[in-house]
């Protein structure tokens, strides 16, 4: 009789521990997925702004077709990388691909801005000024959102690794999530826009 009660108690305690660990893992996973959605909103805004920017610049920068096309290509690559990442946020391959695509896009944009220095009329253009301002504030928001995402992922990964939730994580297939980092150190800062 006593043994039976003891066993039932142990089973109950273990059950509660398993349930808690499982639930908190799910909560943390949802949290970083939600954090990714916030990056996604801002990234999409950035991708929407770029064609307008290029369109406006085209009128002034007649001889820089190559650079402009490179920006558009980089944007399109980034879009597909982002849609991949949005489907499975935290997935190492997707995160890495997005990081690289974003880095490439930032790089080409940097070149574009550097070139645009040589066109005073472009600098004076009202639409251009507005677009640039909006782009840079969107980039700041991306940086904030990415920070929040990385924090959420770190929290989740830590929970995955500590006892006893690591047992549950392995048993129920909670995969490790990857941080979203920019690939190359040179583009770690947002492009400087100075008119």
């Amino acid at each position, binding site marked *: 009789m006593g043994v039976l009660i003891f066993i039932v108690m142990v089973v109950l305690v273990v059950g509660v521990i398993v349930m808690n660990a499982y639930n908190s893992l799910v909560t943390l996973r949802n949290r970083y997925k939600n954090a990714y*959605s916030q990056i996604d*909103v801002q990234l999409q*805004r950035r991708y929407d702004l770029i064609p307008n920017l290029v369109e406006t610049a085209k009128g002034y920068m007649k001889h820089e077709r190559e650079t402009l096309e490179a920006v558009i290509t980089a944007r399109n690559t980034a879009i597909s990388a982002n849609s991949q990442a949005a489907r499975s946020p935290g997935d190492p391959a997707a995160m890495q691909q997005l990081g690289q695509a974003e880095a490439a896009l930032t790089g080409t944009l940097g070149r574009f801005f550097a070139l645009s220095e040589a066109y005073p009329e472009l600098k004076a253009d009202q639409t251009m000024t*507005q677009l640039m*301002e909006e782009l840079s*504030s969107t980039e*700041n*928001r991306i940086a*904030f959102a990415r920070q929040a995402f990385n924090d959420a992922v770190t929290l989740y990964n830590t929970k995955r690794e500590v006892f006893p939730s690591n047992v549950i994580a392995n048993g129920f297939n909670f995969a490790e999530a990857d941080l979203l980092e920019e690939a190359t150190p040179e583009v770690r800062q947002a492009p400087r826009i100075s008119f």
Partner: protein
Amino acid sequence: MTMNFFEHQDKARQNTKQLIGLFGAAVLCIILTIYLLAVVVFGGNPSSGSKAARRSGSYSRQYDGSPQPPMVQSRRLQLWNPQLLGMVALPTLLLIGGGSLYKIQRLRAGGAVIAQEMGGKLVTPDTTNPAEQRLLNVVEEMAIAAGISVPAVYVLEQERGINAFAAGFTPNDAVIGVTRGCLEVLSRDELQGVIGHEFSHILNGDMRLNLNLIGVLNGLLLIYISGRVLADLQGSVRDRDGKAVPIALFGLGLIVIGLIGVFFGRLIKAAVSRQREFLADASAVQFTRNPQGIAGALRKISQHSHQALVDSPYAEENSHMFFGSALRFAFLGEMFATHPSLGQRIRRIEGGARQFEEAPVATGTAIAADESGVMGLAGNLGGASEPSATPATMLTTQRAVAPAGVVAQVGTVNPEHYAYAKALVAQLPEALQGALRSQQGAIAVVYSLFLDEPESAVRQKQLEWLQQVEVAERLDQVTQLSELVDGLDPACRLPLLDLTIPALRQCSAKECQHLFKVVQGLVRADGRWSLNEFTLQVVLWHRLQPCVKTDLTVPVKFATLEAVWTECMLLVSVLAQVGETRPEAIAYAFRTGAFRLPGANPQVVPAQPLACTVADLQKSLEKLRFAAPKVKQGLVDACAHTVLLDSVVNVQEADLLRAIAITLDSPLPPFLSVQQGGATGRAKSGRKAV
């Protein structure tokens, strides 16, 4: 880690649950004690008890030399007596439960009940007493700065000690009571400190807890009282032999047990209340940024002949609500004190003040400076006076607030908002200020606020409507006042509405219903319901709830976001559409806000904002009032991100955001003005037309 408004609210609700747990434990202890007492007095069940005693006596005689004396054995046999337990437990439960429920039911009508019980006299805005006028001004300024409805102010005329209290369920129905001594002895700065302390109780959810505490204590005290009544019967009721009936003895026992109740009550009170006092002191310093004010008030209490004493017989049950300890004698000293000692409080305030000077910059807004293109909640209203300037305050005046900082601002006051409120009241035309003092004038101001453009056909219709439903003098008053109201900055309209509330609070329920009806007519005059009208209307309606309703509690009906998801989406959609004009910008603003909600994912967030009418908006808001504080926090955060996405905040979206926050009982300080943020040299874009 400092908690924000919503976390305080959550905590207060948890504390209420703990309180109920403690209450249950106290009741259980009391029942057990009474039961044991009854067992001793009646010797178990009187009818079967004697038989059992005889039986056990013969039993023990058979086994002579048994180690247990017969008495003990008979006691043990009768210790468990379900019938007697039922006889004891039922009336006790009824008494305590009934007492508590009765009190809680009475308190549902809000803080005014307590203020009146304590002998408070309502201070009306038309008072001529300069001290009372000053008090009203201090309260009014702080209420506008905090974004809550101006609390009703009561003066406890008979009390000479320096004390004050706040009572109510939500910021919306809060009342503030101040003793006569407090009014006469304290300087304006000190009074401001005391009021700041009370505002902290209002904003941190302490009041709700305090009211529940009063209800619970009332039940526990009731045993003590009924014990005394029973004991008094001793003189009159005697049985045939001229001996005192056990009932009287039982009554004496009840007094002892009642004292257990009093003991528990004090213990609970002390445990709940003391830490909150330190928090409120610290908040008062934060709100006014003037530690000298509240410290000075505490010093004056310690030197005053009446200290903080309150003579009202209700002081005992309400003692935990006061600013200083209201009771004459300390029961078992420090352990049971509802308030920390004055010296301790002064030391903490002044110690905190030193820290405050060393680290003047609030960390919560630190990211704001980095984020370009952010509009600030803080700024200057065209030529508004600077707050009494120290370098620290100057710094924060220049600082913009990021959307992420809005949640932290809910339920706080800072000196910039305080200065704004003062300037706002000061810049109102004299005639308008005069009108706000009387109930009739305030009603006329409300009507003027709802009038359409001057000389328009709609206004003509509205005036005709007023002619139908109102007396002629009122119409004249409206015509006069409307000229002044038309000339105001649109940003002043919502604060002006707030200023009418103290006078309007004197309306009876019937007068309020009439007011609502007339306003509804004014709104309907043009056949459509615009957002501006809705904003004013919903705030007016919400602020006047204490006049119309008898039950002011707001229970949590929706604990999770999922339960109110559609409503949240709708709110964010409306804010996005109000703030932006281009479709893709609207969608962007919507998505930025919507994805801030915890648990948002692409499956549940629509790609485009929802289309909705003002009526839908009203229904959603009404439902969202009953969401848990955590849900409201997420929602306010999402709304703030939508509104503050672009650096231009127009009056309409700012007012709508505030109206939403007000309805959710999450007071948001006013948006001071549009501020161009960032060093990026952004093109100057003017405020959008309303």
